[in-house]
């Protein structure tokens, strides 16, 4: 094993293109829709969504990876949009809170959050919901301890944590009961 630089170099097509630093067209796939948007490479996915695409559901709480309010899915995995460059998402599938509702029907997690009053000011809520759904998909919602631990990357300053956990358990249990 290991990297054979010579063999790899031989298969190389052409020198990679350097893009930026000024604005250029970037193709993003958000909630299944292609958008071509002029962006400098330094623009984060979060700022691209909020300032350029009008998708303000993803929130900016810290802009440094410490709060989770900007949680979105890239290629199906929950990540932080504030530490992701938008241009690096070309060719990847980005899903935001705005992409959850199917045919106008809210996602069960959205309904469960309402039912359990799992928010107050609502600012962390889209990130919580994106994490909460992913949590179940990951298989990290088996126990109360796991839910609390694997939801700890989403800070809720209003402290709706008990309600958030209850909403997740409801959705998990409803899925298990077909």
């Amino acid at each position, binding site marked *: *094993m*290991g*990297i054979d*630089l010579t063999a*790899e*170099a031989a*298969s*190389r*097509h052409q*020198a*990679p*293109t*350097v*893009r*930026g*630093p*000024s604005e250029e067209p970037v193709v993003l796939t958000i909630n299944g829709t292609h958008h071509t948007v002029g962006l*400098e*490479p*330094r623009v*984060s996915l979060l700022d691209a969504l909020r300032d350029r695409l009008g998708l303000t559901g993803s929130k900016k709480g810290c*802009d*440094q*990876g*410490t709060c*989770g309010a900007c*949680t979105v899915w890239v290629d199906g*995995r*929950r*990540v*932080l949009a*504030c*530490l*992701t*460059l938008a*241009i*690096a998402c*070309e060719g990847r599938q980005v899903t935001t809170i705005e992409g959850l509702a199917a045919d106008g029907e809210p996602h069960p997690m959205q309904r469960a959050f309402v039912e359990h009053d799992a928010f107050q000011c609502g600012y962390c809520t889209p990130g919580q919901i994106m*994490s909460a759904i*992913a*949590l179940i998909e*990951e298989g*990290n919602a088996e126990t109360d301890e796991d839910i*609390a*631990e*694997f939801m*700890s*990357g*989403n*800070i809720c300053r209003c402290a709706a944590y008990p309600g958030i956990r209850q909403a997740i358990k409801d959705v998990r249990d409803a899925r298990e009961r077909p």
Partner: protein
Amino acid sequence: MRPLGYARVSTVAEAVEIVATDPAGAFLAGGTTEIDLVRLGVARPDLLVDINDLPLHDIDDLPGGGVRIGALARMSEVARTPAIAGRYPGVAQALLLGASQQLRNMASMGGNLCQRTRCAYFRDGVSPCNKREPGTGCSALDGLNRGHAILGTSEHCVATHPSDVAVALVAFDAVVHTAGPGGVRRIPIDDFYLMPGDTPDRENPLRHGELITAIDLPPAGIAERSVYLKFRDRQSYEFALVSVCAAVRVEDGIVTEARVALGGVGTKPWRARLAEQHLLGVPATAESYAAAAAYELSAAVPRRHNAFKVELAQRAIVRGLTQAARGGMR
């Protein structure tokens, strides 16, 4: 954030070449440290070379029972890989106790090894800091240093290495594979981390343009019952006050082999070799563990706000060894 050029590469050779030939170039993997530090103005690349498409994502068994972890494998993937969780539970636990699931989904293993200290004076971009601006002095020596290191420090820097998984990798003698302008090389992980000495800006031996390609975990039977314990103010999503990776083999009540490494207290992920030596041949008791821990920490240099870590680290070692001896599970 400063203006940035961006290039996406598909081969290691391209990646190395483009960064090696641009003094202001840097690799971009998960971005969890890099983008943060660029936004803070602490890292100042002009070109980010996106290496996420490189074929360095796989996690493979090595002959003899070891595992090779591709440098771009994500922390969350590595943690749930059966070979890691089964053979190196301390590594898997360290991964899961680091950061948050979102960050673990982003952060690559190679990037994790290169993550930078959380020292507030380093990150603020303005305070004197020898790591950020060599020769300006260290604000932490006599400043707010609760989070700072007590082992491996120098008069020039007391910044703590923040990684969890690196602590576990250090305990099990991982080997870092790199590719650079000068070719490929293998670096034992304990040599990968440099003590600050009088060049705290140099944290590892990587040359400009040299890329981590893989991390090997060599076969180590003792790792199968390893534990990683992390102690912090908050229950989750916080860097360690003290963490310990511990594994111990006990035969007839006597320690015959031990691995101990510490996080949160060292300027590098700290292999507690003094403690390990002290443990060989002693009864597997809390008293022996405490004696070994005291031996390791005798070299500690506490500062005003972190003196408690000297005691805390010793107690953490005892707790870690006790749990490891009990069979690994909490």
